[in-house]
């Protein structure tokens, strides 16, 4: 699949069309442009070929030009069909092409497959050829495609002050650098890069180092994954990192680690975890894994945990030592080491019984248990975790140690020191944004100013670009050649899907130019090819193209196995830094600030990505902002706890401020200070589940210079980046936690766009849960829950029929409403397994990408108008005995992914006055956008509240100008829209103002699959789409395979099997609306010996208490479910709810 091409001269029409993608130089037909034409689009573009970006824009240009002629008057517009001049190979207009590539990460690439329509990438999916991730991705990879079409990206290289630099100038500048420093062996040159797994980059750097041996190479990543590596290096003497096989782990203990939803290898972790947690039927219930989690924050991993212990991050090393000692002792490991650890853990203030029982459980599952520590924890903790895992016999079963290639790059502080001493003449920053995200104590900006020249390679015109003498515009990874390695080391390509949209260069091109070998129009193609040959020893085109096609070369992963140190206790007691284990006592006047990457902006790099900014954080449900999360206990101290009513000095009653007013979270502003005098101001948010004196702050906001999304137009403090910047608290010695902090509540309040104001399920059977032991003894527990267990049977006499029949024929529940006929040969349905869903948000973003869901901005979210088709509901439960007026300190968390349920007897359809929402014959509840007149009756009548209304022309109007209506800018006519519209999925209608929309079960994918099957069938009756052919966007991306979709009339399909499970239930099933999406009840697997054991999950206990089951039960119910003799008294008896967590401080 080698792509060679030549660029045709722009034609007359092209030049007369919109000029957005062409440079001003070219407009002027400047002679330099002609000289540099070859360099302008250096990359091998999507195979795609000649029909590339230019062809696409050619079409666009022409149609825009002709639109003017046609629309002048009341004539029918003249439309044109513009075919190719030369038919390119492989492109079939209207049929998408899929290419394998990879999404580069600092510590591991994610293999992906990109859908391209007419050579423009529109959707990213995981690459199923890489088995460990099984074709899934995280939310960031999903959203990265939006960055490609970001109108705010750097479109042309700029000089200091913002003047554009031509390609020739950039090339000359890089060539001069190369000449200058190859002469003096690189003395005075410093490179600052982001960590990368690319072997080609490593090779280029090594070559560069050969000619410039005195050059300084530094790497910096704000959220580093370095402590586990440092620990293993200290133990074994060579560079290793752990790789977890969670699918083999029956017992997992995490120490302040969110390994399921953050970190470089989260997909493997959560996928394996999901496999080990999934339960098919009651016989398998006891095989379910068990997760213990000790954490200071409220992470998604903590939410999945069967036992969760709150402890502050500063206490964590001591807690880890205690746990380590207990586990090693119980596992009959190294007694000396256990004693040493016990000594270290003395300062920990935790419940010893929790520690002992947890340790006993892990130790009794040797070879099947795993301990994972958070990347931010000190090196010593990772050393002891190594020893603990060794004692548990984890290596080779649940953990593997992979040897990493040598990396000689220095860290940022060393580079800053050199900058400060004036040793650096020229600083070349490639990627990253150190002026914003470097630790505050390094004062990077001041240090960089000491270099004579700063050259910066960046995707955005950001804070660092302000310092740079020359900022070279960077290409997106979908525009360039490159390579990378997965976390496990599997070698994978980065292929261009499209020619660079602007005059940009990739990292490899810049490095190559620095080395004096500027790359030609094929970009880094030849370099990657050479690296591939070096890696695999294969020189032929066939294997190379096969690698590009499959997208991954798994055998070439990092070497597994680490030499076990021969010393007693691995030499760990001598190597530990005891100071790390000091457990400082925290109090309300000496708080701990835990600093995390944000689920929106990560470390700041996605700050201008509207999808990510608007996607609610899975736990806080906050969009567009970061907040200061405090524990309920701390909230009381600060007196910001919501009270229904408060009386002022005059005796007048007011609603309390820190609460929801008309659906908006009104947050108190607070000033946070550290002992060294640094302060930050931000809105306070009360987050249940935090360690009492831990305050959680997220990075990536408060940018001084970023694009329009990151600087929201409607934002109260106009011109400032949204949110607040936490980097002033990031110190190079301790980047993720700062201690000794205090909080002062300010007099201001601030509105936070929170999409879920109510956190309790109020004892209703929406999410149904049980402990696995109960499920084992009473597999029918789900049927005994909910109103439908107490009402006449929903299906009447048809309830005994199999699902495959119920879903098509039937007495339709005796409804008066004229019910639709489900006559199609295949009937679609979905099932979501609440037991394995980790609430990672990937489905929400995949759905947004697939279905052209608009971004509406904070102002609209504040009004409750968010458009996401999937809503991830988060519920806290504190048990029936907890106070109803207090925010729980240590709740259990349950998640539910909620989208249109495609009810067979849909309430929305009955109220639509214009038949805009109707059923089709394959069981889908469809929206005919053209019929919709926007009465919104359907949304009002939807019991699940999953319908979304286009209050404005979100696609046609500039955000911030919605209220101007037609008087505002027509976004369609702006240059920016030419870019953003390229991302839109052509198979899905872009909705306009005034129409309702909602989940369609990805009807475009269903129809595509059906049509493909018809094309195959020709004159046969082989027209049924085989199971597994259709994957909805959310199903495809789900790392734990919690979502199944398919034909529910066919008893062999995966979804049928799932729906046949005894844990299957319909949400609000008693309404007799018969949703096609059903859920599998969530199971928890608590350890009865633990002090915080509860006989029932707390939501369940709340349900039982509310429905009065605790006080005796059994009369007057329908026979559906209750007809069975109660197998377990436990499920109906009074819940033995032990008070959950001991006090820590």
């Amino acid at each position: 699949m080698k792509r060679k091409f030549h660029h045709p001269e722009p034609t007359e029409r092209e030049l007369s069309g919109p000029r957005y993608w062409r440079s001003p130089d070219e407009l002027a037909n400047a002679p330099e442009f002609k000289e540099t034409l070859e360099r302008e689009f250096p990359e091998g573009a999507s195979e795609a070929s000649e029909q590339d970006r230019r062809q696409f824009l050619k079409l666009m240009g022409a149609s825009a030009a002709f639109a003017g002629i046609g629309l002048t008057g009341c004539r029918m517009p003249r439309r044109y069909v513009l075919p190719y001049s030369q038919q390119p190979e492989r492109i079939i207009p209207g049929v998408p092409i899929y290419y394998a590539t990879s999404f580069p990460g600092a510590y591991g690439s994610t293999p992906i497959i990109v859908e391209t329509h007419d050579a423009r990438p529109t959707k990213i999916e995981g690459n199923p050829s890489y088995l460990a991730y099984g074709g899934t991705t995280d939310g960031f990879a999903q959203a990265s495609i939006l960055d490609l079409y970001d109108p705010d990206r750097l479109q042309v290289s700029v000089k200091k002050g913002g003047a554009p630099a031509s390609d020739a100038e950039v090339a000359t500048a890089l060539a001069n650098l190369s000449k200058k420093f190859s002469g003096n062996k690189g003395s005075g040159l410093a490179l600052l890069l982001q960590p990368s797994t690319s072997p080609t980059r490593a090779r280029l750097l090594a070559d560069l180092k050969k000619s410039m041996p005195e050059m300084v190479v530094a790497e910096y990543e704000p959220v580093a994954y370095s402590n586990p590596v440092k620990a293993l290096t200290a133990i074994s003497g060579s560079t290793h990192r752990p790789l977890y096989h969670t699918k083999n782990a029956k017992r997992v203990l995490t120490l302040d680690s969110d390994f399921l939803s953050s970190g470089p290898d989260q997909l493997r972790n959560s996928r394996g975890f999901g496999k080990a947690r999934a339960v098919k039927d009651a016989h398998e219930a006891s095989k379910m894994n068990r997760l213990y989690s000790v954490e200071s924050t409220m992470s998604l991993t903590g939410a999945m945990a069967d036992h969760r212990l709150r402890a502050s991050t500063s206490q964590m090393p001591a807690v880890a030592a205690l746990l380590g000692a207990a586990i090693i002792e119980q596992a009959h490991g190294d007694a000396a080491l256990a004693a040493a650890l016990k000594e270290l853990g003395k300062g920990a203030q935790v419940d010893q019984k929790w520690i002992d029982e947890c340790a006993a459980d892990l130790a009794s599952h040797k070879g099947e248990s795993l301990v994972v520590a958070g990347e931010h924890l000190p090196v010593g903790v990772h050393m002891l975790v190594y020893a603990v895992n060794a004692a548990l016999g984890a290596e080779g079963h649940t953990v593997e140690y992979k040897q990493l290639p040598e990396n000689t790059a220095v860290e940022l502080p060393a580079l800053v020191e050199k900058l400060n001493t004036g040793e650096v003449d020229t600083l070349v920053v490639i990627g990253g944004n150190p002026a914003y995200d470097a630790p505050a104590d390094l004062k990077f900006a001041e240090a960089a100013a000491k270099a004579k020249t700063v050259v910066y390679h960046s995707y955005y015109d950001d804070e660092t670009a302000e310092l740079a003498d020359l900022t070279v515009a960077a290409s997106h990874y979908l525009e360039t050649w490159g390579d990378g390695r997965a976390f496990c080391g599997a070698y994978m390509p980065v292929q261009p899907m499209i020619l660079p949209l602007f005059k940009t260069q990739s990292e490899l091109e810049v490095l190559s130019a620095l080395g004096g070998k500027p790359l030609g129009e094929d970009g880094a193609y030849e370099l990657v090819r050479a690296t591939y040959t070096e890696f695999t020893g294969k020189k032929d085109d066939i294997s190379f193209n096969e690698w590009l096609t499959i997208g991954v070369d798994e055998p070439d992963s990092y070497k597994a196995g680490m030499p076990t140190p021969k010393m007693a206790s691995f030499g760990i007691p001598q190597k530990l830094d005891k100071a790390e284990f000091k457990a400082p006592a925290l109090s309300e006047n000496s708080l701990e600030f835990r600093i995390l990457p944000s689920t929106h902006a990560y470390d700041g790099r996605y700050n201008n990505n509207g999808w990510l900014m608007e996607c609610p954080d899975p736990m806080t449900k906050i969009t567009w902002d970061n907040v200061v999360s405090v524990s309920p206990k701390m909230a009381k101290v600060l007196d910001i706890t919501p009270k229904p009513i408060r009386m002022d000095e005059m005796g007048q009653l007011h609603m309390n401020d820190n609460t929801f007013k008309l659906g908006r979270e009104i947050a108190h502003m607070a000033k946070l200070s550290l002992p060294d005098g640094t302060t930050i101001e931000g809105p306070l948010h009360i987050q249940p589940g935090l360690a009492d004196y831990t305050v959680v702050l997220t990075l990536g906001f408060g940018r001084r210079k970023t694009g329009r999304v990151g600087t929201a137009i409607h934002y109260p403090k106009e011109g400032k980046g949204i949110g607040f910047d936490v980097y002033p608290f990031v110190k190079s010695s301790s980047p993720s936690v700062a201690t000794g902090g205090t909080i002062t509540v300010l007099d201001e309040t601030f509105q936070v766009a929170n999409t879920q104001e109510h956190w309790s399920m109020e004892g209703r059977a929406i999410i149904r849960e049980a402990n696995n032991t109960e499920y084992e003894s009473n597999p029918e527990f789900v049927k005994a829950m909910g109103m439908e267990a107490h009402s006449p049977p929903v299906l009447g006499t048809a309830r005994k029929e199999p699902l495959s029949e119920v879903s098509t024929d039937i007495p339709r529940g005796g409804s008066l409403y004229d019910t639709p006929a489900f006559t199609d040969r295949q009937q679609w349905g979905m099932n979501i397994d609440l037991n394995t869903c980790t609430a990672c948000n990937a489905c929400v973003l995949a759905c947004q990408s697939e279905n052209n869901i608009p971004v509406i901005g904070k102002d609209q979210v504040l009004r409750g108008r968010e458009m996401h088709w999937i809503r991830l509901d988060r519920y806290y439960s504190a048990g029936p005995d907890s106070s109803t007026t207090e925010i729980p300190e240590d709740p259990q968390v349950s998640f539910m992914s909620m989208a249109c349920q495609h009810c067979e007897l849909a309430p929305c359809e009955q109220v639509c006055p214009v038949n805009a929402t109707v059923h089709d014959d394959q069981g889908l509840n469809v929206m005919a956008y053209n019929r919709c007149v926007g009465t919104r009756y359907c949304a009002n009548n939807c019991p699940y509240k999953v319908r979304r209304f286009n209050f404005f022309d979100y696609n046609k109007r500039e955000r911030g100008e919605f209220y101007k209506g037609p008087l505002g800018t027509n976004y369609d006519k702006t240059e920016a829209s030419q870019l953003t519209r390229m991302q839109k999925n052509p198979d899905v209608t872009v909705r306009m103002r005034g129409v309702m929309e909602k989940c369609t079960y990805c009807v475009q994918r269903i129809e595509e699959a059906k049509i493909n099957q018809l094309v195959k069938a020709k004159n046969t009756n082989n027209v049924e789409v085989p199971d597994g052919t259709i994957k909805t966007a959310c199903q495809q991306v789900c790392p734990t395979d919690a979502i199944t979709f398919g034909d529910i009339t066919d008893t062999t399909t995966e979804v049928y099997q799932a729906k046949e499970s005894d844990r299957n239930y319909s949400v609000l099933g008693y309404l007799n609306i018969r949703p096609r999406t059903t859920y599998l009840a969530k199971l928890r697997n608590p350890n009865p010996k633990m002090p915080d054991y509860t006989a029932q999950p707390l939501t369940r206990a709340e349900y039982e208490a509310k429905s009065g089951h605790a006080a005796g039960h059994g009369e007057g119910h329908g026979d559906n479910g209750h007809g069975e003799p109660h197998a377990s008294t436990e499920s109906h008896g009074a819940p033995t709810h032990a008070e959950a967590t001991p006090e820590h401080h």
Partner: protein
Amino acid sequence: MANVFPKWANLAPVKVLIGLTLILGTVVAGVTYYATPKYLRVGYQPVQPVAFDHSLHVTQLGMDCRYCHTFVDRSEHSNVPAASVCMNCHNQVLANDAKLAPIRDSYNSGEPVPWVKIHNTPDYVYFNHSAHVNRGVSCVHCHGQINEMETVYHAKPLSMAMCLECHRNPENFIRPLDKVYDLTWKPESKQAQLEMGETFVHDWDVNPPQSCSGCHR
């Protein structure tokens, strides 16, 4: 003087006016309803940049539809051929004909030939060619006797009613697969079509969608 006009004459102008309005309204409504085309695009016959003659190429020379509309059986679009396809023959045949200049220009310059689009479905309609031509629906059903047209025009209304006419009763239209691109083929009789159609609908399990999601997404 006696009254020249009887009393009823006072109202006569009003009555006449009302009567005329009614008659005129009925005529206008009647003409609009009965005498105007159901679909305004029918008969649309724009001037194309090159006067391509389908009757010459198909009927006289015997070319298959798919020589030019290559992807009709593989894609939702039936593609209009690239200039390079025309040039396969016309680099020899009529190689210097002035009428073919736009094709040669396009071939040499890379600029597309701006063919005027005749058959157009609205943006919210996701019509798929491959699903039809592979299952016994011929080009002629929607495009008319293109093979006999010297200049292509819009022959059928392409309205939703027309789609449904066939989707509701496919047996009236469906034909053997080897006759799909044979635009001159006709069933022997209505009865023969019906019998054959019913067999195909049964044997091929033809069940064209009649609900919204079939075409609107």
